[in-house]
C-alpha cells in the first residue's frame, strides 16, 4: 500500500475545491469497505452506518491536514477506527486508556499512567516523520523484493514476527519450518533494515527491536 495514488490526489483536489460530485465519487468508492470494517466489530448495520457517516464528516473536517503521505484508503480507515473506538467507549465496550489528571471521574476504565510523562522525553514530530519515512522505505523495499521473487515464506515469517510479535518458536510452528530458518530470515531482515536506515543518514538505535536478532541467532 503506497502513498496517495494520482487518481485519489486529483479527487482530493476537487473535493478541496468544494466539488460535490467529487465528494459523491469518494463516498461511492470507499463507503462499502469502511462499512464492512465497522460492522465486523459492532455487528449492527444501522449503528455501523452511523459510525461511517461520522467518519465521512470527520474526513472533510480533517482534509486540510491530509498530506497524502498515506494512501487515501488508509487515512479513511484510520478516521473510521477513531470514530469506532469513540463509539465503543461510549457504549462501555472499550476501555478509555488515557492519562488521567486525577480530575476525570469517568469510572473504572480510566487509568492514570505511571509511565514517564510525555514531556520529559518528547521527541520532535519532524524527527519522527523523517524516521518513519526511512523505515517505510526500508520495509517497502524488502516486501516488494520478496513479493517479486516469490519469497512468500520469508514474507509470512517476518510478518508474524514483526507485525504480530510472535516468538521465533511460534512462528516456526505456524509455518512448519525450523527455528533456525526463522532466525535466519529475521537476521537478514533486521540487518538489511538497519543498513537501509543508515543509508538515509539516520541512527538505527532509535528502534531497539532492530537488534533483537543479536541474541537469538
Amino acid at each position, binding site marked *: *500500500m503506497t502513498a496517495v495514488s494520482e487518481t485519489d490526489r486529483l479527487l482530493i483536489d476537487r473535493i*478541496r*475545491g*468544494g*466539488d*460535490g460530485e467529487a*465528494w459523491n465519487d469518494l463516498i*461511492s468508492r470507499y*463507503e*462499502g*469497505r469502511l462499512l*464492512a*470494517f465497522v460492522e*465486523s*466489530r459492532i455487528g449492527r448495520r444501522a449503528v455501523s*452506518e452511523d459510525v461511517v457517516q461520522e467518519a*465521512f*464528516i470527520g474526513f*472533510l473536517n480533517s482534509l*486540510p491536514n491530509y498530506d497524502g503521505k*498515506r494512501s487515501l*484508503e*488508509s487515512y479513511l480507515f*484510520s478516521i473510521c*477506527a*477513531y470514530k469506532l*473506538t469513540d463509539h465503543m467507549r461510549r457504549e462501555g*465496550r472499550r*476501555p478509555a*486508556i488515557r*492519562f488521567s489528571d486525577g480530575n476525570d471521574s469517568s469510572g473504572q476504565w480510566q*487509568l*492514570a499512567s*505511571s*509511565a*514517564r510523562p*510525555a514531556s*520529559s522525553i518528547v*521527541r*520532535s514530530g519532524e524527527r*519522527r516523520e523523517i524516521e*518513519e519515512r526511512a*523505515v*517505510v522505505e526500508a*520495509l*517497502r523495499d524488502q*516486501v516488494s523484493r520478496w513479493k517479486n521473487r*516469490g519469497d*512468500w515464506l520469508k*514474507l*509470512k515469517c517476518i*510478518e508474524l514476527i*514483526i*507485525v*504480530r*510479535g510472535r516468538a521465533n518458536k511460534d512462528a516456526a510452528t505456524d509455518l512448519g519450518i525450523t527455528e533456525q530458518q526463522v532466525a535466519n530470515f529475521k537476521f537478514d531482515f533486521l540487518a538489511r*533494515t538497519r543498513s537501509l536506515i543508515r543509508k538515509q543518514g539516520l541512527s538505527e538505535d*532509535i*528502534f531497539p*527491536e532492530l537488534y533483537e536478532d543479536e541474541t537469538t541467532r
Partner: protein
Amino acid sequence: MAVKFTVSELEAYLEEALTPDEMAAIERAVRKEPGLLQQLAAINSRRDAGVHTLAEIWRRHRASCPTREQIGSFLLGALGKEQTDYIAFHVEKIGCRYCRANLDDMKRQQDETADTVVSRRQRYFQSSAGYLRPGG
C-alpha cells in the same frame, strides 16, 4: 489461566487493528487483569512521547497489504497458488482488518441490491455535503 498478548498485539489493539474476536478477547482480559490496562497505558505514554516501533509503522503504512485489485482477483480465484495462499495468510493468520474489510465488501456487493446501496450512499452524501468547503 491469563491469556498472553504480545506487545505488537496490544499496540494493534489500540489502533483498532486486530480482528473483532481478538479485540473482544483483549477487552475481556482487561476487565480481569489490571496489569494489562497498565501495559496499554504505557504504550500510549510511549507513543505520546513520539517513540514508535517497526510494527506500528508497518501497520500504519500497510507495508505488506495486497491492493484491492489483488484482493478482487483472490476472490475470483484468478491468482497463482502461492499468491492466493499468501493473501489468505495475511487476512486469516495476520488478521489484517483492512484487507478483510475489502474482502467482505466485495463479497457483499454480490448480495446487495442497487437500491440499498444507492440509498445508503445518498444518506452519507446528504449528511456530509454541508461540510464541503472550498479551500478545505
